[in-house]
């Protein structure tokens, strides 16, 4: 089982601990064995331990430590945002966030929708069962 996602300049990573939890950042330089210089369009460039990062499949084409303008342009060119939001990982995170932010009334409406959907599925299933019986 070889590694598929490498730490390299331009690798997009998800922060999984700390103040910037849940943000997508670009690895812009490697400081030493444990730390990387990391940057994102909405944060100040800074160092982060690799243990705080989870690598993703997305990679952008940049040179070592670009300035903010070049970084943002490269991210637009690679279309990181839509790649992330269409990936199954990204979609899962979006759904988790939506569920966590549901109101009590929203949860009630979701419950009604689930029951309705299950009813429709059960009706179709009964129809199919009758046909084959």
């Amino acid at each position, binding site marked *: 089982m070889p590694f598929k996602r490498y730490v390299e300049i331009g690798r997009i990573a998800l922060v999984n601990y700390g103040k910037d939890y849940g943000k997508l950042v670009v690895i812009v330089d490697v400081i030493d064995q444990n730390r990387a210089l990391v940057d994102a369009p909405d944060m100040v460039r800074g160092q982060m331990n690799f243990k705080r990062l989870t690598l993703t499949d997305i990679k952008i084409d940049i040179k070592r430590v670009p300035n903010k303008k070049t970084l943002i342009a490269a991210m637009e060119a690679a279309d990181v945002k839509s790649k992330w939001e269409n990936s199954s990982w990204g979609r899962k995170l979006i759904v988790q966030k939506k569920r*966590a932010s549901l*109101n*009590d*009334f929203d949860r*009630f*409406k979701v419950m*009604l929708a689930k029951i309705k959907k299950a009813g429709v599925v059960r009706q179709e299933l009964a129809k199919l069962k009758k046909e084959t019986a």
Partner: protein
Amino acid sequence: MYHKRGLWAIKAKNGGAFPKHEKKAAAAAPAEKPPKFYPADDVKKPLVNKRKARPTKLRASITPGTVLIILAGRFKGKRVVFLKQLTSGLLLVTGPFKINGVPLRRVNQSYVIATSTKVDISGVNVEKFDDKYFGKKVEKKKKKGEGEFFEAEKEEKNVLPQDKKDDQKSVDAALIKSIEAVPDLKSYLGARFSLKAGMKPHELVF
């Protein structure tokens, strides 16, 4: 210090002398006669208490029309509409009665979760309700004749007076109209709240 405080400038503005106020004529205290009687031991005077009783501070999340979840009592778990805060600090609340069986009722703020769902309450007039409306009715004491005593006890069932029923109906009429304007809100208010598996109260957004 004199120069630092600018006293020279104040004096100059006032023409060489420091501005003085005239002393207010002290109101002549009425001449008190020396008391005829002094108590043997010193009588302690109670301390001055200038605190005023105010209704409990209402949480910012509770505004008229908010849907509340009652947490204790016979209506625990019921979702209910908040009308106003009474002068005692308790919250005036109604089911509406037709939807979930909760009448016009007082409830303590501490036994309530405020949700972020609001109902339009503009058509409802709650001016006439106050704590006295909800107080226990004091009955005139009947004369105790032994035979009559037992019969009288039996007859005293708690019948809700008709005017309270009419109040409930009038308050609920406008409310139910605005509730039915929102889809699913009526069945939401009719259902009870309960914690299911996997629900963590400290992570839930109400």
